C-alpha cells in the first residue's frame, strides 16, 4: 500500500510546457508561414491540428492496449491507472480529430459528415472506448474494474483495424494518404512540430490522469483496524 500522493515528475511537467510552446509555434507557422495547398487552398491549414491529433489518438489507443495487456498480466495499479488515462486522453484526441475533420470536410467536400474510412473508424472507436469508461464507472471493486476494462480495451483495440479494413471495402472517398515526399516542406515542418507538441502534451495528460487514478485508489486504502484481542493459534 503506497499512500504517498502521486503526481507527474518535474520532467513530465517540463514536457507539458514544451508541448504547449511547440503547439503555439507549429500553429502560428501553419497559419501564416505555410503555403496554401494547391487544390484545397487556405482550408488545408486545418490539417496542422487535424492530422497530428489523429496520429496521436491512434498512438495513445495503442498505448491503452499495451497498458491493458500489462494490467492483465501483472494486476498492478500502475498499469491500470495508465490504461484508464490513455483511454481518456485517447477519447479527447478522438473527439478533437472528429470535430476538426468535420470542419475540414465541410469546405472541401461540401458536407459535414461522410461515411469514409477514417471518419467511420474514429467515430466507432470513440463510442466503444466511451463505453469502456461507462462500464468502469459502474464497477466498485478496483481489482474487478481493472481486469474488466482491460479485457474490453484489448477487444476494442483489435476491432479498430478490422473496422478500418471493412469500411474501406464498403466505400472510400478520403484522399490518398500523402507522404512527406509529395508535400512541400512548408507543410511538413509545422505538421511535425504539432505532432510532437500534441504527443508531449498527451504524455503530460497521461501522467496527470494516471496520478489522479492512483490518488483516488490510495484514498480508498484503509489500514487494518487494530487487533482487539491477542489470541493463541487454534
Amino acid at each position, binding site marked *: 500500500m503506497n499512500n504517498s500522493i502521486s503526481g507527474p515528475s518535474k520532467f513530465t511537467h517540463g514536457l507539458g510546457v514544451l508541448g504547449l510552446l511547440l503547439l503555439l509555434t507549429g500553429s502560428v507557422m501553419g497559419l501564416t508561414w505555410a503555403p496554401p495547398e494547391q487544390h*484545397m*487552398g*487556405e482550408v488545408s491549414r486545418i490539417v496542422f491540428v487535424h492530422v497530428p491529433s489523429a496520429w496521436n489518438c491512434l498512438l495513445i489507443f495503442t498505448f491503452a492496449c499495451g497498458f491493458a495487456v500489462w494490467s492483465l498480466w501483472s494486476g498492478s495499479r500502475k498499469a491500470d491507472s495508465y490504461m484508464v488515462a490513455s483511454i481518456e486522453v485517447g477519447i479527447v484526441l478522438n473527439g*478533437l480529430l472528429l470535430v476538426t475533420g468535420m*470542419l475540414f470536410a465541410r*469546405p472541401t467536400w461540401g458536407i459535414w459528415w461522410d461515411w469514409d474510412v477514417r471518419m467511420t473508424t474514429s467515430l466507432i472507436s470513440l463510442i466503444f472506448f466511451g463505453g469502456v469508461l461507462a462500464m468502469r464507472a459502474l464497477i466498485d471493486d478496483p481489482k474487478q474494474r481493472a481486469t474488466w476494462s482491460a479485457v474490453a480495451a484489448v477487444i476494442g483495440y483489435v476491432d479498430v483495424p478490422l473496422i478500418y479494413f471493412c469500411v474501406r471495402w464498403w466505400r472510400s472517398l478520403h484522399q490518398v494518404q500523402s507522404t512527406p515526399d509529395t508535400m512541400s516542406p512548408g507543410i511538413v515542418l509545422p505538421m511535425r512540430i504539432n505532432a510532437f507538441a500534441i504527443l508531449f502534451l498527451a504524455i503530460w495528460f497521461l501522467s496527470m490522469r494516471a496520478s*489522479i487514478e492512483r*490518488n483516488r485508489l490510495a484514498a480508498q486504502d484503509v489500514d487494518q483496524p487494530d487487533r482487539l484481542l491477542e489470541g493463541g493459534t487454534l
Partner: protein
Amino acid sequence: MRPTGVIVGGWEYIIAAYIITSVVLIGYATSLILRWRSSRGNPPR
C-alpha cells in the same frame, strides 16, 4: 468555387478548428489539474 478548382477562403473553418482545438486541450488540462487537486485534497489516513 473558381474553375481552377482551388477552394477559396474558408478562414472561418480554419479559425473554428484552431479555437476548438485550443479550447478542448486547455479545458482538459484544467479539468486534470482540478481533479488532481481534489484527488490529493483528502489525504488518506
